[in-house]
Structures are given as C-alpha cells and as structure tokens.
C-alpha cells in the first residue's frame, strides 16, 4: 500500500459568532512557479532566500501606465524613481521602455549617468544637494528641483559664477485634503511660499524656471488628491504665464501611487482597496486640461511613479527554518528571511504563498525572521497550512523599496535574479559575502593582536 503524504497534525478551535467577515483562509493555491520557472529550482540554483524580479511584469506595468496616461493627455514623460529600486537591471529595463531618471542623491545621479541616461533627462530632487552636486547638474543641464530657499540662493550664486542658466523647477507642497500633509519638502502653496520662490527666481533672471514639481505623499489611496495637486500646480503655472508671459515646460506630479500591497490595519486586502492607475490618471489629466492652458501651450506631464510600477514585479523566495509553539499556544514559524531584507513588512501585511501543494487545513501562525532580534517579525498573524522545515514560500509584492532599503544586519543580503521575457533566469546581484560587508573597513594596526 502506498503511504500517504504526511502533514503535521492540527487541531483548530472553531469559533462561531466571532467577527470574521472575510474568513480566515487567505491562500488557496500554492505558487510553485514564477514566470514559468520553478521556485524549487530557483532556490536550488541561487540559494535561499532569493529575490526574484519579473522583467515581463515591469515592462507590462510601465506600458500599461504609459498607455493610460497617454490616452488622456498628449504630453507625458515618466522618470524612473531610482530610490524605489536602483538595481541597474531594473533601471535599464525602465530606460529601455523610454523612462527618464529621477534621483535624490549624488550616487543615484552617478548611477543614472553610468547607466547611460543623458544629463538633461535626469531630474534631481531632494533636500540634500551639495554645491558639487548642483555644479554637476548645471554642467549636464539636468533639471534641478529646488527644495528650499537656501538651495535657491546657493544655486543662484553657483550659476552666476559659472555664467550659466540652470534649468530648475521648484518643489511645491500643498493641502490636497489628505492626511498627513507632506509639508516638509519644498515650498508651501497655501501660505504663498511657492509663489514667493517663483517671484525670486523670475526676478533674478539667473535661473531658467522650466517646471513645477510636487509629491503629495506615498501610498496615496485617494486619487482625487492628485486632482487637487494638479489644479494647484496648474494655477501657479497660469499665474507665471499671466505675470511674466512665460510658459512652464512641465508639471511634475511626482510619485505616490499605491501598489497592490495591503497596509497593516486596512479592512480590505490591497488588491480590493487600492485605486487603479487610471483613477489617478483621470484625476490628474482632467485637472490640467481644465486649468485654462492654450491647447498649443499645454505643459508636459512628468511622473515619477515608482512603487506602482515595480512592486508586483518583485518576489522574495524563502524557506522554513523551524516551527515552534509560543507560551500562549500560538504557532510560530521561523523563516530564513527577516526584516533586514523586508523593510516594508513594518507597514504591509505581505501576501505569502506556500511554494508547494498543501492540504485544506490551515493554522493561524506568526512568522518570524531568522534574526536574533525581537523586532524580526515578518507577519504578526497569517493563516497558512502547516509548513515543515525546508518547505518554501513566496512573498509577493516585494519589488519596491525592499531591495534599496535592505541591510546586512545579522544576515547578509541574498542574491537577486531577474527572469527575462523568454523565461531565462539572469543573476543580477550576487549573494553577499563577508568581504562585501567588510569592504572599506579599516582596522588600526594596534588592534590586530590580542590573546584570550
């Protein structure tokens, strides 16, 4: 007689009458393959854990967003938000699709140049631009998005010295009716700071004001807020036109579109509650088109969409280290990936699928990472089938921020592969070794010797 498949014995209390609107079981299917490549073979070839990116999904997301905006507005340009995921393979996939670069630091800027992006197609944002950064931007004709008055004055001084007229935009913050209001970056619209900065720029004539930029928040669940932002930027652009007879080349609406991840505490999963790209597009383009621009004088619409274009193209594969029972009877499972490579687990309840077939019985489980630190909790509560040590799981929606914010804390960072559109697997970053961690570290001579 053939032996049956073994599954850990489970006894689970059935609670009736308790609040359980959406049921407890969330995963009905195992995810055994990503883009046609088996999870098992990926982990066998590249080790566990492993980040996997789908090139097809990145391109599809980009083309979809581009189509949605371009069917509503004639002049659209995307700039890939480097900080969201600055792996060169990811950046270049976006560049191949026609996306420019949006950077917020010198090394990101240099990365974009190294990747082959023309200087005039790199938008430099952020509050921290050194004199040397500004000089480099001026030399390369990169649009500089001014964040504060000190930067405005410094830039004016540098431009005067260099006898060049840099292309600039100002970052505008505003009340769009959502909380929290991001007013730490840029100049405020409502209290007149933004208009004041514009007048200063126009009065000196040293800078070429080509754009207006805003970035109203992150993981925005209210598309109408973008409509308010686009109206306010358009209003500033119209005021510039009226007062100085100058047409603004572009309005940059920044990023912040939500991905399909599920925010902690939200009633519905991200797949059901997050707005679709067309809803943001509709709000933004309607506001600009109705703002009163002459048809031949419409500004370009720049978008720095990051998360919404790459999050669902990224997966983290990992394995079970052990199961244990906590003192209160809760089941706990220890995985081989932790918060050092899953920064977003602090605000998302990531969807996690078993990578092998499983039975119909599930258990409420707390998922821990491998770090010897109490904060290393991957999911505080998840319903999963019983998993044995060595069995594998797939974490979804991992493409945004996790890789750029990962750190070698206790565990070194794993390898990253990209599956191309022909289902071929490419290693795009090797797993780290101690050498990588210690690169640049210097040990003073007198500390080298000791006896214990």
């Amino acid at each position: 007689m053939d032996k049956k498949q073994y599954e850990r014995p489970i006894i689970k209390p059935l609670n009736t009458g308790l609040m359980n609107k959406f049921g407890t079981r969330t995963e009905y299917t195992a995810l055994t393959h990503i883009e046609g490549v088996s999870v098992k073979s990926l982990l066998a070839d590249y080790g566990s854990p492993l980040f996997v990116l789908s090139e097809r999904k990145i391109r599809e997301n980009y083309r979809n967003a581009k189509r949605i905006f371009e069917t509503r507005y004639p002049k659209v340009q995307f700039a890939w938000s480097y900080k969201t995921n600055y792996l060169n393979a990811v950046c270049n996939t976006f560049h191949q699709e026609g996306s420019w670069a949006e950077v917020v630091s010198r090394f990101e800027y240099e990365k974009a140049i190294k990747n082959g992006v023309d200087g005039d197609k790199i938008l430099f944002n952020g509050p921290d631009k050194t004199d040397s950064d500004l000089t480099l931007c001026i030399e390369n004709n990169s649009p500089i998005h001014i964040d504060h008055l000190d930067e405005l004055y410094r830039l004016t001084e540098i431009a005067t010295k260099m006898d060049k007229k840099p292309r600039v935009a100002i970052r505008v913050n505003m009340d769009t009716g959502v909380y929290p209001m991001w007013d730490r970056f840029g100049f405020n619209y409502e209290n007149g700071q933004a208009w004041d900065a514009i007048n200063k720029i126009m009065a000196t004539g040293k800078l070429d004001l080509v754009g207006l930029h805003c970035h109203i928040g992150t993981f925005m669940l209210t598309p109408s807020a973008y409509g308010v932002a686009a109206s306010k930027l358009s209003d500033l652009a119209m005021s510039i036109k009226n007062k100085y007879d100058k047409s603004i080349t572009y309005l940059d609406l920044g990023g912040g579109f939500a991905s399909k991840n599920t925010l902690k505490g939200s009633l519905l999963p991200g797949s059901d509650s997050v707005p679709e790209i067309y809803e943001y597009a509709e709000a933004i383009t309607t506001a600009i088109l109705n703002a009163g621009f002459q048809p031949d004088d419409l500004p370009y619409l720049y978008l720095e969409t990051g998360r919404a274009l790459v999050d669902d193209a990224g997966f983290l594969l990992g394995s079970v280290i052990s199961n244990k029972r906590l003192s209160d009877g809760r089941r706990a499972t220890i995985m081989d990936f932790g918060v050092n490579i899953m920064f977003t687990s602090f605000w998302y309840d990531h969807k996690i699928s078993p990578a092998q077939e499983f039975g119909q019985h599930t258990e409420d489980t707390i998922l821990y990472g491998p770090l010897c630190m109490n904060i290393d909790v991957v999911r505080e509560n998840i319903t999963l089938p019983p998993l044995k040590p060595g069995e594998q799981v797939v974490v979804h929606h991992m493409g945004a921020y996790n890789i750029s914010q990962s750190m070698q804390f206790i565990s070194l960072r794993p390898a990253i592969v990209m599956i191309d559109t022909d289902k071929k697997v490419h290693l795009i970053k090797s797993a780290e070794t101690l050498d990588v961690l210690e690169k640049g570290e210097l040990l003073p001579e007198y500390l080298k010797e000791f006896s214990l």
Partner: protein
Amino acid sequence: MAIKKNIAISDSGFLFNPSTGDSYSLNPVGQEILKLLKEGKNDEEVIEQILENYLTDRDAVEKDLYDFKNMLENYKLTDDE
C-alpha cells in the same frame, strides 16, 4: 495521556466536546492520532502507526506528537489522571 471519553469525532475531522460545547477541526493526521490516543495507544504505538501509514520520519512525528498532545491538553480534551 487519556482523551476524554465523551468527546465525539466525526469522520470528516469535526470534534465536539459536550462538556464545554466547544468544537474543533482536525486534519487527517490529527484525526488519526486522536483516534489512536482515544483507543489507549501509547506514544510509541502511535508513532509506529503513523510511520506505517505516512511518508515521514520518526523525528518529525515524535516532535509533532509532543506538540499535538500539548495542544490537546491546552484545549482541555484530556482527562487528568
């Protein structure tokens, strides 16, 4: 460990404890172990039986049985002896 005599287990793995009114669901392995324990089998006999019927190893079954019995106690499905 003795399982309470009055608890009822259905063929589909539904367990009812008439003294408290609580009900539970069991997966097939859990169901089989509980049945063996109810018949008065000791740990060794339970492990042997599971090893005979399922694709697994002794270490895994031993560990899981220990944990499972803890849960039965936790849910007060055993008789104090």
